[in-house]
Each structure stands twice: as structure tokens, then as C-alpha cells.
């Protein structure tokens, strides 16, 4: 298909690949006229221009067809069916003690990760992220929908399994919220970008409490607003089926609703936390010790009852915080 494609007039190619023109822009080249074929265009480009742009004439054709295949895989990735399950087969801990577990998780599930720093949580995530096949330091293996994943998936950057959200993450781009979401949606080649952008901003505002407008620069959002926007954006725009949430205890957002937003979008939610409300929200929690998973605890009815209690306590503390913010005294309502 390669040579034949290059001989087609650009206008015809653009009908099949509406984003193909972006290639020329990315390479710093002016857009060829619609009647011209890429092959002719590349063959007639000025030598000096190519030299200045550090481009090699002989590889441009191949780069262009590679770009077109990238566009078609991205298009496919967007519409591809969601995964049904991920299974992790136990390996061993740092002392080579075998992990006796087979863990299967499905979209919409919440799993908590508990254990001290250095106990192996990051390695566990890396195993998922890199689709370990017994070849990582832990010896764990991963199955997708019950089978070993196709080898190409490991390095398919646009089909990464894990999206991450943590307290340390910041927006570094100098864009407004609207421009920012639009740019992300464009890179995912979404349709109806304005609609998606509106939805995400509304969702983020809902989670944050304090309102922000589409024109607000992302870098001037408060901590809570940033976290809310990251969660809304990840839940709606990230292709990754798994979302890891790391240390959002003090993020200034409604934690419970934030997690449920992701669950509603059929994400598998992993939460690394020692916050009782978040940790007990999971159906199960993985206990990390010495580089391995030493236990998998299913949240019991007793723990669920306690969770309710903790949530009430949390709501009370929240009310106190608000009262302080509003300059009120906090004498009576603790005991109501």
C-alpha cells in the first residue's frame, strides 16, 4: 500500500485521513497543494529548506506512511472493545518467598494497596504497567481477559494499562483549562471535542467545590481544583483501563465521589493509601511486605460498618473545618 498511497493527491488522502495534514505541520513543512501527491511534493522540496529543517528527503515518504498507519491504529484503539479482566499471577518477594495468589480484577472495582514505603507497591504497578511475563524482578505474570497479552502491547504507548494520579503531580503547561482539555482530546482523536471539554469542566467543578471557569489558566488552579480536574480528565479522556491514585488524602476534594467518578467510567481503581475511608472503600486490599504481596484481605461487613462510622466522623470534621473557615465558634455541634 505504501508506494501507492504516496502517489495519491493530498486532497484524496485527506478525505481518508483528515489529520494527515498535521504531518507536514509537525515536520515544519508548508502544506502541499491538494492536487499534488506527497511523492511529488517530497521529490521537489528545496534542498536548503530540508537542510534547515534537518529532514532527509529519502526518508520522508516512509515517515509519512508510518504517520498514516499511526493515525489508523489510534483510530482503532479508540473504538476497540474494553478489557474484561486483568489477572495477576503471584511471583515472589525480595527473599524469594513465593506469593500464593492469583488476583483477577474487573472494570469498576476498587482495590486498595497498603504497606510501608519500600514494601513493593511501585514494583507491583510497574509489573502491571509493563505486562510482566515472569521476566520482572518479582517473577509475576499478567493475563488480559485470561490470556497472555500480545507482545506488541507492551510498548504501545497509546494503549498503556495504567494512568496515575498523585499529590506530586502538577500542570506545567501555560494554557487555560479549556485549551488544555481540548489539546488532550485532540491527541486522543476524539469526536465532539467541545462537548467533551464542557463535560469534563462541569465534572471537575462538581468535585472541587470551589468553581473555576473554562478560561482559568491550569497553573493557577488551587490544589483541590487541580486534583479534581485531573480526575475528571483521566476518567473521561484517558484510554488506560486502570487508574492508580496515590496520596490524595489532603487533596481538598470529595475523595469518595472522586473515586466513584472513576468507577462509574468503568475504570479499575487502585488506591495506595492508609486513609481509612479510602482503604476500606475497596472491595479488597493488597498487603505489601518485603517486596511481595503477603495477604489479600476482603473488606468484611464489620469493616464496612466501621467505614460508615468513619465517614460520619469525617463529615463532622469537614463541618468543623468549614465553621473555622467562616469564623464561627466550634463549641456545640461536635456532640449533636
Amino acid at each position: 500500500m505504501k508506494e501507492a498511497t504516496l502517489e495519491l493527491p493530498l486532497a484524496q488522502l485527506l478525505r481518508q485521513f483528515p489529520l494527515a495534514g498535521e504531518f507536514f505541520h509537525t515536520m515544519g513543512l508548508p502544506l502541499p497543494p491538494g492536487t499534488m501527491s506527497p511523492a511529488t511534493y517530497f521529490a521537489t522540496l528545496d534542498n536548503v529548506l530540508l537542510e534547515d529543517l534537518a529532514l532527509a528527503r529519502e526518508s520522508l515518504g516512509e515517515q509519512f506512511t508510518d504517520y498514516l498507519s499511526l493515525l489508523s491504529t489510534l483510530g482503532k484503539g479508540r473504538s476497540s472493545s474494553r478489557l474484561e479482566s486483568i489477572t495477576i499471577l503471584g511471583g515472589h518477594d525480595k527473599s524469594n518467598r513465593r506469593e500464593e495468589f492469583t488476583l483477577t480484577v474487573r472494570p469498576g472495582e476498587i482495590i486498595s494497596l497498603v504497606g510501608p514505603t519500600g514494601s513493593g507497591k511501585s514494583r507491583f504497578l510497574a509489573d502491571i504497567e509493563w505486562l510482566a511475563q515472569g521476566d520482572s524482578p518479582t517473577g509475576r505474570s499478567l493475563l488480559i481477559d485470561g490470556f497472555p497479552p500480545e507482545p506488541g502491547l507492551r510498548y504501545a504507548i497509546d494503549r498503556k494499562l495504567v494512568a496515575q494520579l498523585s499529590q506530586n503531580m502538577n500542570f506545567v503547561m501555560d494554557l487555560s483549562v479549556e485549551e488544555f482539555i481540548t489539546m488532550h482530546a485532540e491527541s486522543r482523536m476524539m469526536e465532539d471535542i467541545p462537548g467533551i471539554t464542557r463535560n469534563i469542566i462541569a465534572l471537575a467543578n462538581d468535585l472541587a467545590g470551589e468553581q473555576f471557569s473554562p478560561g482559568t489558566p491550569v497553573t493557577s488552579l488551587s490544589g483541590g481544583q487541580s486534583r479534581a480536574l485531573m480526575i475528571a480528565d483521566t476518567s473521561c479522556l484517558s484510554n488506560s483501563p486502570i487508574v492508580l491514585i496515590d496520596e490524595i488524602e489532603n487533596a481538598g476534594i470529595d475523595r469518595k465521589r472522586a473515586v466513584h467518578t472513576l468507577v462509574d467510567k468503568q475504570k479499575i481503581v487502585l488506591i495506595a493509601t492508609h486513609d481509612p475511608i479510602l482503604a476500606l472503600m475497596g472491595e479488597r486490599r493488597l498487603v505489601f511486605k518485603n517486596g511481595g504481596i503477603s495477604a489479600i484481605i476482603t473488606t468484611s461487613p464489620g469493616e464496612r460498618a466501621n467505614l460508615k462510622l468513619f465517614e460520619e466522623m469525617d463529615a463532622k470534621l469537614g463541618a468543623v473545618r468549614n465553621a473555622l473557615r467562616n469564623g464561627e465558634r466550634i463549641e456545640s455541634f461536635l456532640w449533636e
Partner: protein
Amino acid sequence: MKAVTLAGPPSSGKSAVTIKAIASLKQKGVTVGVVKFDSLSTQDQQLYEKQGVPVTTGLSGNLCPDHFFVSNVEESLAWGVTSGFDLLVIESAGLCNRCAPHIQGVLAICVVDNLSGVNTPKKIGPMLKMADIVVITKGDIVSQAEREVFAHRVRQVNANATILNVNGLTGQGADELGRLLQGAPETTSVTGKLLRFSLPAALCSYCLGQRRIGADFQMGNVKKMAFS
């Protein structure tokens, strides 16, 4: 011996990533040596030595670092072979975005970082566009959206490269990079091999030490900007 060229803009995390990948390879019994090219000074010699990694540093001084690199790359390979390494990492500074240190038939890696901004992939030339592996660093401090957009922009300019995220601080992804490095082709000499792209060119009076400004003093390869 296997060899790789590794390049990337200043402070993108080249050495941090290399050190983490070497640590992972060491555990598998792979011996790795490093040749570090830089321009004026480098602390990386000590950084590698501290990790027990054999390293030779070359400083280009007032020469174009890329030209200095290509003039010394043969000898670098020879040093690696004599030292008996399983793998030689040739790290070059990438001081201008037009750097083009990659060699045909030698595994080529480019390191870029998320903090440099989403327009950066477009601005980097052959060092990124002609790499086989692109390592993206500093993913732990930017948002998921920015990571995804950045990776997408890298793919736009180099659709064929294997792209991976590596954290130079925690080492997340370093095992995987190590595994890719082990897949490098055997390279015991580069004599006669071709660079993947021509190096940045310059031969003008200023290359030869001219300091005075003015049209009368500009000779050789001189290019003028257009002002409208």
C-alpha cells in the same frame, strides 16, 4: 560487545536513567561501561564512578560537541572492547536540538523529559526523530493528560520508535529499558559505518576564533535571517 548511542537535551535525565538501567543489568551479571561526551564540564564522571560504573569522559571545549563526538567514537568502541564490557553506552550531550549523533546499525536512544513542554518533540531534530528508543522522563510530576499528550507528540515525529516512560529517581521502567539495551546489536567497531543524519554544519570566521561583529568579518558559511 553491544553498543548504544544515547542522547538528549541537557538535564533531561540521561545519566540518571542510564545509571538505573545499568544497576538493573548489573544484577543480571551484565558488565556495562560508559563514555560520556559533554562540552565544558560534567559531574557525571563522579556520578558513574560512585555507582562503580567504568566511565571515560570527553569534553569538547570550543568544538561543536557533535563533531567532537564523531571524531572520537571509534576510539570509544575500542576502549569498550579492550575493557571487556558486555555493553557500552555512548552518552552525548545533545546541546543543540539539531544534534545528530545516531549511527546506522547501532541502537539509538533519545531521552526527553515531560517538563520540557509538549511542543518540544517538534523542535528536536534527528536526535529524536531518528532514534529507535525514546525514553520519556519526569512523568511523576506532571499530570496524566500532559504525559499522554507528550507521548503522542513524540509518536507524531517518530512513529516507529519504541517509547517508554522511565523514572530516573525511583527507577520505575529501568528494568524494561535494561532489557531493551540487551537487545542492541553486536557492535565492536563503527569504522566505515554511516551517521544516520549529517551533523550540524558550520565553517565560518567565527569557528576560527573571530570575535569582532560586522559584515566585514563574516566569512565562509554565513546565513542571514529575514526581517519583514
